[in-house]
Structure formats: C-alpha cells, structure tokens
C-alpha cells in the first residue's frame, strides 16, 4: 500500500462523492445564481443573457452601497471585537487557576448553541424593555423604557454585533489557543529573560507568531458575518438592511424581475466574500515572503 501503488482510479473514486456534493450541488448553485443574476432564466420566460442591467440597477441605487457599508461594518466590528476578546481570553487560559476546567467548558457553549437562541438572548437582555434596561430602572438611572439607550433595532447594530461576538468568541479562542499551544513558550521566556515587559512580549513576539494561524479563523468568521441573515433581520435597524436581508426581501416579492434582482444581490455578497479571500491570499503571500518562509 505504498503511495505509488494506489491507482488514479481509486483516488478519483475516493474523491468523487465529496466532489459531487461540493462541485455539483454547491458549485451548481453558485453557477445558477450567477447565471440568473446575468439574466439567464428561461424557465421564468426571461433570457436576456448576458444582461448586466440587474447589477446596474442594484449597484446604481444609493441604498445598495449603504447596505454594503452596513454589512461590512457589522462584519468587521464583530470580528475585531471577537478577536481581541479571544486573544485576552486564551492568554489567560494558558495559566492555571481554580475553576480553569469549568471556564474551559463554559466559554465553548455558544459554539454549540444555535444562532436563534443567541438572538433570543439579545432580545431579552438588550431591548428597551429588557434586563439591562430593568436593572437601570432598578438603579434609578432611568424611569421609562425609552430612557434606556436603543441598543437593538438601530443601524449602529450593537445588538447584531453582540450576537456575533457571543457566538464567535469560542471559535476565535479555540483557534488562538491551538496556535498558542503550537508555538510554545520558549520565545516568550527568552524575551522575558532579555528584559522585555509583558506587553512588549505580546505585541512583538506572540502576535506575529500566532497571526498566520489565526487568519483562517478570522476569515471564516468574517465571511459568515457578511452572509448572516437571521441576526440583522430580527435585530437590525430596518431599511436600509444588510445585503442578505435585501436579497431575502427581493426573493419574497411576487415580481419576477425582483427575483433576478435578488440573485444579483446574493452574487454581490459572493463577490464581496471572494474579494476578502483574495485580499487574504495576497497579503498572506506577502507576509510569508517577508518572514522568509515559503
């Protein structure tokens, strides 16, 4: 069973099912979305391929760019916040303390709990009639629910960001922790012996070492946030919504042309994710070259 012996046929057979699902279904769906967004939809009686008018109409409206900005803002803000919190948490978890095992169990919980539950928690805690507001009333800080700052249903998106952070903190922490374990403590100890303070060690030694390992997790979270639908739909500030919500509204309209408009919207989301990916690949290449690895 040495490497050279396994015939190509066997390899192909082994890869086939996965390739079928991902290439056929997933890939097929992507291709179909692109085709429809370009006007190829004979079963609706519309075949104006290649028709960029749907994109033109979508990208020509000011609302689209506001939505794009919102989508990016929610994704960036929550990913950055989650990353920072995860960094601090995983560094703390390296040390031993009583209850460490408990904390290591608890912090992973949001990973296994559905998004909708996280949204429910946000509604309960952060709404104007929610728990934080009631605590504020208890402390005599406000005397009316409207006195409590609006956290949910605003375009600042605190509610949305809070849910994303709640859900992704464990994921980020796991990724950081895995990398931290991998790099070991040698370099940190060496730097410390040489007289560097803890913050310096963190920014000059630890961070550059874990950066590459963490980038994948950051990308995954970021892409997920861009395409996430439930949280902005329920907790968002209404018109103009994020791109996935806009696509949903188009799909739910009875008008055929809006169906294709919706496809243009989702393809735009895909393009956005694609750009992020490309940016990562490009900057990773540069980073690797700079650091001297290849």
């Amino acid at each position: 069973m040495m490497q050279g012996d396994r015939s190509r046929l066997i390899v192909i057979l082994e890869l086939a099912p996965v390739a079928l699902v991902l290439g056929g279904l997933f890939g097929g769906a992507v291709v179909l979305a692109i085709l429809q967004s370009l006007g190829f939809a004979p079963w609706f009686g519309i075949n104006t391929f290649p028709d960029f008018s749907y994109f033109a109409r979508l990208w020509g409206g000011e609302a689209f760019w506001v939505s794009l900005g919102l989508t990016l803002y929610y994704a960036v803000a929550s990913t950055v916040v989650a990353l920072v919190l995860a960094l601090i948490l995983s560094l703390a978890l390296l040390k031993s303390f009583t209850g460490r095992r408990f904390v290591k169990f608890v912090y992973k919980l949001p990973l296994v709990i559905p998004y909708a539950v996280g949204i429910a928690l946000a509604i309960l805690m952060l709404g104007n009639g929610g728990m934080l507001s009631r605590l504020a009333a208890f402390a005599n800080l406000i005397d009316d629910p409207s006195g409590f700052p609006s956290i949910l249903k605003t375009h600042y998106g605190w509610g949305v960001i809070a849910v994303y952070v709640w859900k992704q903190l464990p994921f980020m922490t796991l990724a950081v922790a895995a990398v931290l374990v991998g790099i070991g403590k040698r370099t940190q100890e060496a730097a410390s012996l040489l007289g560097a303070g803890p913050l310096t060690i963190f920014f000059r030694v630890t961070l550059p070492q874990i950066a590459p390992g963490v980038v994948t997790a950051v990308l995954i979270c970021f892409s997920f946030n861009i395409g996430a639908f439930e949280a902005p739909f329920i907790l968002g500030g209404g018109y103009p919504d994020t791109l996935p919500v806009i696509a949903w509204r188009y799909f739910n309209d009875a008008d055929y042309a809006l169906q294709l408009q919706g496809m243009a919207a989702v393809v735009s989301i895909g393009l956005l994710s694609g750009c992020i990916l490309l940016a990562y690949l490009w900057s990773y290449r540069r980073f690797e070259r700079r650091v001297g690895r290849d």
Partner: protein
Amino acid sequence: MTKSRAVAALLAASIGLAGATPIARAADSAASFRQVFLAGAIAWDKVEARAKGEKELNFYYWGGDDTLNVWIDSVVRPAMAERGVKLNPVRIAATKDAVDLVVTELAAGKAEGEGSVDVIWLNGENFFTLSQQDALWGSFAERLPNSKNFVWDPASPLSSPNLRDFGTETKGREVPWSGEQYVCAVNSQYVQAADAPSTFADLKAYLEDNPGKFTYVKPPHYVGNTFVQEAIYAHNPDGNGAEPFQKSVDELGAEELARLIAPGLDYLKSIEPLLATADGDKPRYPEDTAALDSMFLNAEVYFNCKFGIYAVNSGLITGRYPEAAQEFIFPEKLMIKNKNYLAIPLNSPNPASALVFADYMSSVDAQASKLKTVGYPVGIDPMQLSANDRELVKIAAPSHYGVTSEDLDANAVADTNASLVDIIEATWLEYIERGSDKPIADIVADAVGKSAPE
C-alpha cells in the same frame, strides 16, 4: 413556507415536464362531483359519505396564534375525526404562501382534484388574487346545511360582508368564518381615560405632549396596512371617509387615488418624529403584532392597535397584555370592521371533506367554541339563529374592558377595496419607509402600473 411566485413558476415548469399522471381518473371524478354539487343535485349525506372515503384534509392557515393552534388541534381535529375526515392542519407564516401555492399548481397543470391545498383561511387581497386567477372551487357557501346561519339576502345590510370581501364579490366561493374589528388598547395605568385620543388630531396632540408613546405595526403586514387605511379615511379630502375606497383601482384611477390618499400619508409622515424612536430620530415600527404586544407590555408604548375585538381579553388571559389594558374607541366612526373566510381552491384534492369542514366551521357549536376559547368573534349572523343558539353565542363571548359591543358597532366602517390595498402599501413603503422625495402622485402611478394584470 417561502415560495415566491418566481420559484413557483420553476415548480410549474418542472411539474409540467413530469407529464400526465394516473391521477387523471381522480380528476374526472373530482370534476363531476364538483359539477353535481354546484348544481345542487347531490344530497348532503352523499357528500359526507364521499368525504369519509377521501384522504387527509389540508387546511392551510396562519399559525402565529398559539391559542388558535391549540383549538384547531384539540377541538377541530377530533370533531372532524367524528365525521370521518382526517384533518391535516398546515401552519403557514403568511396566507400569501398558500395562495401562491394554489396559483402555481394550477399553472403547472394540476387541475381539479390534483392540488395540495383543500381549505385556506383568508380574506381581502388574498381572496382577490384567487378570484382573479379563477382559482376557486365554486359557489358552495349557500349549499352548505349551515348556510342558514348567514344572511344572504342582498336586500339586508347584514348580508354585505357575506356577499362582498373587501369589495370583491364572494359569490359563495368562500364562507365567513370570523368577524373582526380594528380595536386599539390603551394602558390605563399611564393614560387617563379622558386623555385617550378619539381622533387622529387628538392622537397628534397627545403625542406632542407625550412623544414616543405610540407606534403601529409596519406595512406590508396587514395590521399595519389597516392603520394606514384608517388614517387615510380620516384625512379624506372630500370628507366622506371610507366611501371612495370601496371602489376598485380601475374605477378610481391613479390620479384620483393619489389625491385621496395624500393627506393621510402626509399626516403619517408628520407624526413620524413623535413615534417611539429607535435610532434617536428614526421611528421604530414593529414588524408584527407580537413585537408590538411586547412593546405594549413593557410600557414602551401606551397603545396597541390591531384586529381584535376581544384582544384585550385574550391578552389578559395569556399574560401578554399589562394588567391595566383597556379597549377604547379610536378613531371615532372609523374602526375598520371586516370578516374573514374559508375558501376552497379549484384544485382541492379532497373537495367533499373540504365541504364537510366548511359546514362544521359554520355550525353554532364550532363558532361558539372558537369564540370562547380563541376569542375570535363569530362569522355567522346571530340574527339568523334560534333564541337558544343566540344565547349560546352571547354567553360564549369573552369580556370587554372599557367599551361595550354597541360602542364598537356604532363606530364601525368598511374595509378598503382589495385592489387598493397593495397600492397604498407600496406608497407607504416608498414615501415613508424609504423617505422618498417623489410626489405621492408619481409613487401611486408607479404602483398602479406595476399592479396591472400581466
């Protein structure tokens, strides 16, 4: 279910490709049953016998009311089982989904007896759509044994909601199931009875003194649409309230419609800064009645308007309303009242069961039980009932808080013509939600153009 019509068309294409099926024979028998029944040439016990032989009855209805779900499962299902009909209640998120499904299946060639929807709970534009698409089974309502519980004589004013649904002629193709009126509740803990507004002008004055304590459900939800319609009635430049809005959009024309609705929409725009706020300045419109209920309970707003003659009672029983909630008369003489119905689509696969179901739902027992348990007013006309039955219905009625049913009746007004509903909704969305600068006349003209039949 999230079937958009476009997806539906794809479904149509692929079903069509699937070719003719051996259901052809069933379709024949369904067609002949339909003909025979509508001609009045079949006895009711034969219908019941046929129903026993049919498969599951698919009842598509809005599943957002827990109490209704419990009633359907615990009362209606056993009652249907007694009649030999197996009930399959299908909870849908929006009635439009069921309507789309029926229209699609018909377009795909699933003719009589071959569809998947047997009965739909609907009214207004949804019925209008089915009627326009010729997607209804036929004039069955007056042939049901329990049709005696309704007033059908056009000479009597009581027959009006039985004969017309938001202006569309029912022609017996749907049978009334419930009545409803748009009633607002007030939290009397925070609002004195004397301060409760009775007109829109009062409301604006109240909000100027107490900003942020009111909001309404956002269109395109039908509860939101109805509030907008009431505002439009109140600000009718000709002063005749709901009258012109009984006409269809073809009769009115885009210009006239725009002229009539502009003042109402301007009013709604002017009170925007006074409504419950989200982003500091932007008003917050809850997406559905559950969200508004929640705001009402938490005293974020002091008023809660929705369809629900007994909403306060239901709210108090389930704990969703604050203890001090009460009904009040607002807006005077303009509280929209309508009925909702059970319709049978043309391609119902189990038409006999559907008829038995419709008949059961029109019985005094079912209506009284629904009134008592769910708090939905009866769709039958108490005038037609025997004294005993009338008493039964009266006893079953839940309590009122703060008003009497006579008050509510005295302030009732008709709903808007079905063809106007979508246009008014689109205008609100464009003019108020998106804050467009376009003049209302243009927005209405666009909307009318889009809604023209293809």
